[in-house]
């Protein structure tokens, strides 16, 4: 059994909570005491139906205001897969939360109300999904019961969205007509839509192929921690020097020739160690410890790759960035801390090329700064070289966060478009 992480975007109006509630309920991930608590609260508030959003809206402020503010993580499993849902708020003022939820997602579900069709917010959600390179996108056309399960209406929406999505980097797009309220095409195929030949939503979630979404080609091993036991009681470990980290790309094997950055020196992998014994290969997302044949001075923040396949060694980055705070604005000359893989450095914003309107995709080149939830393209100068790939090639070696030195808050999320020395 593997794990599929998916993000859902939308508002209560789209039936998002109903859909999640149904997936959880039908997979028996909602328990009686949780359901009772929700029913009790719904009754106390005078709501006539059981408001399943109360299951995910865990904070007092969210329940009081009846809105989702923050990303909530929910868990369920079927015999085929374990699922982690990042349930994100759909409103534009929570763009940063959707970006956060999408950053680790294998798949995103965007809900569309069949009566309303493709709205500004659907386009925004699709854009953010493609910006964060979520590999699979499902457009769930909901409330089909309210349009008489009309194939024509579904096709209209499909055509409109497909034409919009052609402007984005969407590699795998699936359309599923559903009624979350009645369960049509959620867990099992609907008898109300015999014209639909595809799979139900849950069947799709269980079967979508994600193993090849990871980059298994470019070997990238950011060194996270150096393990040197130096236990006096065990002389065998005296010379042990292991480089611990989580594989960010490629497949590593003992005997492979590898190159160390920043030194540029080459050596071979002597062994791949784990607590459970040495292993014959390591690939994402495994956390392992490498031992190398030669003594090279290696520390946290360094990168191990292959001699003929190296990341950019870069101090100049071109990146798309989502700004996540209202305390300060991002502008040219801003000085920030950048954390990229296991390396932390300081960064200077050299230029803001444009601010992107996330609804229309219009580029405003006259913009002079970015505020909360705004997205734009920037140039950064970093104090020391980072070992980066384009985000489109590897999300783990192409993504970074920006931290404000004054408050220590995480204020921005960036995706590398281009990198130069």
């Amino acid at each position, binding site marked *: *059994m*593997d*794990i599929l992480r998916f993000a859902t975007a939308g508002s209560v109006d789209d039936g998002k909570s109903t859909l999640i509630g149904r997936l959880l309920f039908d997979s028996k991930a909602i*328990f*009686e*005491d*949780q359901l009772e608590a929700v029913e009790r609260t719904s009754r106390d508030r005078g709501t006539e139906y059981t408001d399943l959003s109360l*299951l*995910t809206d*865990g*904070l*007092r*402020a969210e*329940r009081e205001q009846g809105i989702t*503010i*923050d990303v909530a*993580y929910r*868990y369920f*499993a079927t015999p085929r897969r*374990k699922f*982690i849902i990042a349930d994100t708020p759909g409103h534009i003022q929570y763009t*940063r939360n959707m*970006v*956060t939820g999408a*950053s*680790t997602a294998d798949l995103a579900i965007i809900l569309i109300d069949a009566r309303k069709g493709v709205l500004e917010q659907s386009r925004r959600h699709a854009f953010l999904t493609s910006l964060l390179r979520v590999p699979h996108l499902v457009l769930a056309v909901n409330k089909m019961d309210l349009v008489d399960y009309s194939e024509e209406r579904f096709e209209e929406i499909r055509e409109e969205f497909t034409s919009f999505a052609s402007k984005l980097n969407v590699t795998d797009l699936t359309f599923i007509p559903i009624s979350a309220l009645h369960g049509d095409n959620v867990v099992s195929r609907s008898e109300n839509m015999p014209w639909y030949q595809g799979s139900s939503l849950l069947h799709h979630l269980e079967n979508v192929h994600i*193993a*090849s979404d*990871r980059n*298994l080609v470019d070997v990238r091993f950011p060194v*996270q*921690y150096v*393990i040197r*036991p*130096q*236990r006096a009681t065990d002389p065998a470990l005296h010379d*042990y020097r292991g480089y*611990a980290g*989580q594989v960010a790309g490629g497949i590593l094997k003992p005997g492979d020739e590898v190159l160390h950055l920043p030194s540029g020196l080459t050596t071979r992998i002597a062994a791949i*160690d*784990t*607590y*459970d014994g040495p292993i014959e290969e390591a*690939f994402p*997302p*495994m*956390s392992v*410890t490498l031992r190398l044949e030669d003594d090279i001075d290696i520390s946290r923040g360094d990168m191990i790759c292959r001699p003929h396949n190296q990341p950019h060694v870069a101090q100049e980055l071109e990146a798309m960035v989502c700004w*996540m705070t209202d305390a300060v604005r991002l502008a040219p000359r801003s000085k920030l*801390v950048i954390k*990229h893989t296991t390396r932390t450095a300081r960064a200077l914003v050299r230029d803001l090329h444009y601010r992107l309107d996330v609804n229309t995709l219009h580029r405003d080149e006259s913009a002079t700064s970015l505020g909360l939830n705004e997205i734009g393209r920037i140039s950064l100068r970093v104090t020391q070289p980072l070992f980066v790939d384009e985000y489109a090639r590897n*999300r*783990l070696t192409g*993504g*970074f*966060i920006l*931290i404000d030195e004054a408050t*220590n*808050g*995480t204020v921005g999320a960036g995706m590398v478009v281009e990198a130069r020395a």
Partner: protein
Amino acid sequence: MLQRDYTTSQLDVLEAEAVHIMREVAAEFERPCLLFSGGKDSIVMLRVAEKAFWPAPIPFPLMHVDTGHNFPEVIEFRDRRAAELGARLIVASVQDSIDAGRVVEETGRRASRNRLQTTTLLDAIEDHGFDAVFGGARRDEEKARAKERVFSFRDEFGQWDPKNQRPELWNLYNSRIRRGEHIRVFPLSNWTELDVWDYIRREGIEIPSIYFAHKRKVFERDGMLLPDCDVVPRGEDEPLFEAVVRYRTVGDMTCTGAVYSTAATVEEIIEEIAATRITERGATRADDRSSEAAMEDRKREGYF
């Protein structure tokens, strides 16, 4: 073409993530510690820590906030496990906080030291100068926890501000704090109760005996089965009886209920949990029942 499908099982993904989180903390903080109660989640967390730094020993001490009302079987297990690992175990005692006048013992039949632990915990964090504290909490446990970050920032008062949390993207964690502040770190955030048990089974990890079905003298209060012991005052209207029970969670004796169960092995426990329709905290924890936001409120103050 790849010769095989590089699919990774759910337990391997969760373990790799937790190992990554622990190494990140060891690399970026000066004085981390791991909260170890002898409960199943902290036992699993400890195993992950062994794996993260092997063949080196775990590079931080363990700490337990002891209410003085814990199950003796669990305390025995805690001490034995720490000794096996050669780990330094710090015991922060709620009784000491009471004796020092830092907190006042609750009185009455429902008196519990659950909430008092927060003061003891925060004092211990301050006294030892810990800047990162590992906890075994999981997001599937409770709805306020579902919103919590893996690296959860606490201010100089140890408080959690759920509306002002740092965004967390990819596998990048922000470890920057000022002196006096700290980060609570939850490596098992994405594990479910069933994952924890599957892992215990797979790894063959020993757990305290009270997780397995046993005969115990109990009495019923608010639908919960509480143990017969000195620290839980029992009314005359609360008769004792013997039952075959086990504990699904392990906390303070005053607020942790047993469940009827005949599950005597890890396999039987997994079967039981897979079939249950009640959450673990709903079945066993009086501390979460006081209000809908009970956990959120305690967490804001600095609770685990």
